[in-house]
């Protein structure tokens, strides 16, 4: 058997196993109805006993399927197939030995849908088609050996094979789609994790840069001054900086976040995403303070979603105006991000695009009390509402949430509308219609009114055509209605009194032959119309029987087959669609969880590393500043040097490397005001950067006072770098040797 299965595939396999159980019951019922009329085939009691035995196992397995693990599902399906084969052998051997009445084809053996479906679940596609093929060969051979009238039984056998093939096809589609979804989820989870880790690292770096900028530089700059009157303030700031560094270092506990804090963070995010986005508050400052605190998780989700909405507005929507409005609520908060960009149709998000759906909707909805909504239309801008409420009653209050534009929106069982699938289906339909044509011809030859069978065939062909197979999209209501009318019309043909000789239900072949047509309609997303049509056909057939008072058992058997087959199809189709819908949500959640976990870990690591680095660099100096002792000249020079060192992290770019870092520290301690600049547009090779650093360092070592500016020059200059004091400028030419 094969590799471990994913969540969706397991769920699909369980559904399929349930369907096998139902199919067994349906097949047995159909056979019992036929047998109850033709006692001559196999004596009633033995036949029914066999049927019961054969139905029992699939039924029991089907009932238990939702709780059975994958390995056991496979073994139990294998057992169903083996049981089927064993009973068959028993029947044949028993007949040969005279224990059982012989000379007949065991009837259940002519309906291979159940064993073929079980084979599919146990061993896969090949085993399933092998079972169908084996049963075709075996049934045909045994019919010939038993000297049956092939014409008489052709309808029954053909329709049985068609039913088996249909079931195998549907199972195949279900399992392939399930496997693809699982693979896509795994990929999406991995990608989201990586992406989130990258984002989180960048965010942590920014957060850390903000801390450096806000706290450390200001403290060091003030400490650099020879100002005893500022000593206490400096000590206070140094202690605060020390504490912040330590908090970042072992940042673990994320406490609840007050709304004003969230607002500050939101403004920072908005400024980072779009410097011009205005963040406004709807309501009073008091309402802002009175709003409840948000759990850290909710705050992070809301912030993340709002940031994503802003990014979408700038990156994709081409918006001119973007506004963010924060509305404090008595029991939560609502944030609306609006833009006047090009907008989009939320229902038409291409399959597989996770962007807005996952990042905004799922992220917020994954949090207790969170709700999100996206309202947009092409050319009309986009409005994203994000909401959180303390009592956990999620969902926006403004308007009902539209269906989330998931990664894929299948309307039927088909996961994709590919030319290959369409071609395969069209060929299948042609083969099917050819088989039905043969049935119609056989039946037509034996009646006084062959036109009835010709009309039935034409009706079925027209029904397939009415569904339309140029795309696999959901057919229109009108097409569904046409198919329904055609089905009813074909069923009404059974009212026409025709001579049957001998009367077999093969004469009503067209009733069960409508199963694939109606199943096709259901598979394309019109299950309701298909079910209604099935019911109408049954009613019309039954009505005909009552009106004509004739021997209607053939027709009833035919209608039972149609309804049974159709119910199995509908169950499978409905289940497939349901699983897929649930999967879209589950997948989004899974991706979101991966994202959150990965982001937390990466962000924390980044902060820890950075704070550890800065702590190693300035920890001792901060301790010195935090104390009460007066600062010496050397202390002040050290503060100036460290301030420059930290500042170089912003603007020195590639110059922030040895030996220049050490040279700059020395020069700043000497009292030189060192400025290092790197322009991002200049592309340099590693050895050129290295040369520039060494060259600038050498020049810097010769300076004793004043301002020194070292710079990697923009690309408009021929020279690589410059080293300039206020009176003297030198340039490093490309290719120059640096000693």
């Amino acid at each position, binding site marked *: 058997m094969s590799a471990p299965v994913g969540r969706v595939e397991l769920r699909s396999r369980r559904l399929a196993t349930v369907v096998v159980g139902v199919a067994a019951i349906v097949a047995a019922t159909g056979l019992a109805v036929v047998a109850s009329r033709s006692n001559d085939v196999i004596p009633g009691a033995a036949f029914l006993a066999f049927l019961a035995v054969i139905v029992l196992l699939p039924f029991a397995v089907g009932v238990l399927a939702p709780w059975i693990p994958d390995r056991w599902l496979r073994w139990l399906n294998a057992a169903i197939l083996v049981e089927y084969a064993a009973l068959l052998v028993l029947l044949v051997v028993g007949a040969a030995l005279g224990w059982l009445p012989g000379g007949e084809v065991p009837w259940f053996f002519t309906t291979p849908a159940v064993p073929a479906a079980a084979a599919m679940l146990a061993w896969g596609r090949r085993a399933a088609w092998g079972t169908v093929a084996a049963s075709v060969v075996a049934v045909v051979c045994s019919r010939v050996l038993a000297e049956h009238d092939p014409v008489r039984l052709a309808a029954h056998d053909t329709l049985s094979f068609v039913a088996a093939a249909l079931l195998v096809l549907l199972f195949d589609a279900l399992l392939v789609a399930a496997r693809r979804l699982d693979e896509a989820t795994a990929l999406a989870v991995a990608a989201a994790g990586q992406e989130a880790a990258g984002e989180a690292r960048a965010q942590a770096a920014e957060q850390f840069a903000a801390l450096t900028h806000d706290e450390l530089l200001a403290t060091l700059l003030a400490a650099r001054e020879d100002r005893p009157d500022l000593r206490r303030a400096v000590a206070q700031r140094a202690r605060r900086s020390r504490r912040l560094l330590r908090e970042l270092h072992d940042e673990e506990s994320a406490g609840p976040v007050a709304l004003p804090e969230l607002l500050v963070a939101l403004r920072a995010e908005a400024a980072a995403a779009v*410097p011009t986005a205005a963040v406004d508050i709807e309501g009073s400052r008091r309402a802002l303070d009175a709003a409840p605190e948000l759990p850290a998780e909710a705050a992070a989700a809301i912030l993340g979603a709002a940031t994503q909405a802003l990014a979408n507005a700038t990156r994709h929507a081409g918006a001119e105006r973007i506004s963010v409005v924060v509305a404090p609520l008595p029991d939560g908060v609502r944030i609306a991000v609006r833009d006047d960009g090009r907008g989009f149709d939320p229902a038409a998000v291409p399959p597989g695009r996770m962007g807005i759906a996952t990042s905004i909707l799922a992220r917020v909805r994954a949090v207790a009390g969170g709700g999100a909504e996206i309202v947009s239309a092409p050319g009309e801008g986009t409005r994203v509402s994000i909401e959180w409420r303390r009592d956990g009653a999620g969902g926006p209050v403004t308007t009902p949430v539209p269906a989330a534009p998931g990664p894929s929106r299948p309307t039927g069982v088909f996961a994709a509308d590919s030319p290959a699938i369409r071609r395969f289906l069209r060929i299948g339909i042609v083969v099917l219609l050819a088989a039905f044509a043969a049935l119609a011809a056989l039946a037509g030859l034996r009646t006084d009114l062959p036109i009835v069978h010709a009309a039935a065939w034409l009706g079925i062909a027209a029904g397939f055509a009415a569904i339309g197979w140029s795309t696999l999209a959901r057919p229109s209501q009108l097409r569904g209605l046409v198919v329904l009318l055609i089905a009813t019309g074909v069923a009404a043909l059974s009212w026409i009194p025709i001579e049957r000789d001998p009367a077999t239900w093969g004469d009503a072949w067209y009733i069960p032959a409508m199963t694939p047509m109606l199943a096709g309609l259901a598979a394309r997303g019109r299950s309701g119309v298909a079910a209604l049509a099935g019911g109408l056909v049954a009613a019309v057939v039954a009505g005909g029987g009552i009106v004509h008072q004739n021997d209607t058992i053939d027709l009833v058997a035919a209608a039972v087959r149609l309804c049974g087959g159709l119910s199995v199809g509908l169950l499978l189709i409905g289940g497939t669609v349901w699983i897929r819908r649930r999967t879209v949500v589950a997948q989004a959640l899974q991706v979101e969880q991966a994202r959150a976990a990965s982001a937390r870990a990466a962000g924390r690591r980044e902060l820890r590393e950075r704070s550890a680095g800065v702590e190693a660099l300035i920890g001792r100096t901060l301790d010195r500043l935090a104390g009460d002792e007066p600062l010496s000249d050397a202390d002040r020079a050290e503060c100036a040097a460290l301030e420059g060192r930290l500042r170089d992290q912003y603007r020195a770019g590639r110059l922030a490397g040895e030996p220049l870092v050490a040279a700059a520290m020395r020069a700043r301690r000497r009292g030189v005001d060192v400025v290092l600049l790197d322009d991002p547009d200049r592309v340099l090779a590693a050895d050129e950067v290295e040369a520039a650093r060494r060259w600038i360092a050498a020049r810097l070592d010769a300076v004793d006072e004043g301002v020194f500016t070292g710079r990697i020059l923009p690309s408009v200059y021929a020279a690589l770098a410059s080293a300039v004091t206020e009176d003297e*400028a030198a340039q490093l030419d490309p290719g120059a040797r640096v000693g």
Partner: protein
Amino acid sequence: MARVAVVDDHELVALALGDRIAAHDGLEFVGHSETVGDLLRSRPADLVVLDLNLRDGSQPRENVGRIRAWGAQVLILTSGENPYLTREASRADVLGVVRKSAPSDRILDAIAAAARGEPIVTPEWAVALESDPELRAAPLTDREREVLALYALGLGAKAVAARLYVSESTVVDHIRRIRAVYAQLRRPANTKVELYQRGLEDGILPFPSES
């Protein structure tokens, strides 16, 4: 006496600077605010020393615009951020851009000069302008570009004048014209979002980054 106010949300910076301003002849320190909004509600000033990057999320250009409309001149203080914010402020009519990490005497000299209405030319300002792709198409003379480039290298006014064999006052004239041209650069046409997007294209992000 020129009245000088400081807008900076680092209380230490304001403390250190405020005392020095108060002690300076010809300057009156009228107070310190954490946001531009607070400033506009306090005593009037002739010159506002404004931190380029305030933590309240407000934008340099908007801040400068509000202060200019209030009637004061603006001198920008930076902690060495990227040129994007400096350009933003420069387009909104500031007298100059001064680095916080410069020696405090120099900062004070700059404030005093700004209080007299003189433009303050620093490498920070020159670098930010020089690296602006839009400036390449601006109607500047070769000489003006040369002046800007020399300042951007880090030279002082005296050295620039000496290198070009002109007087310092000629250099100042060039600077005035560069400022005027820059302030007019595509101003009415571009939207703020556009400007931001162009910043991204230039590889300049509004937040400090390491590489």
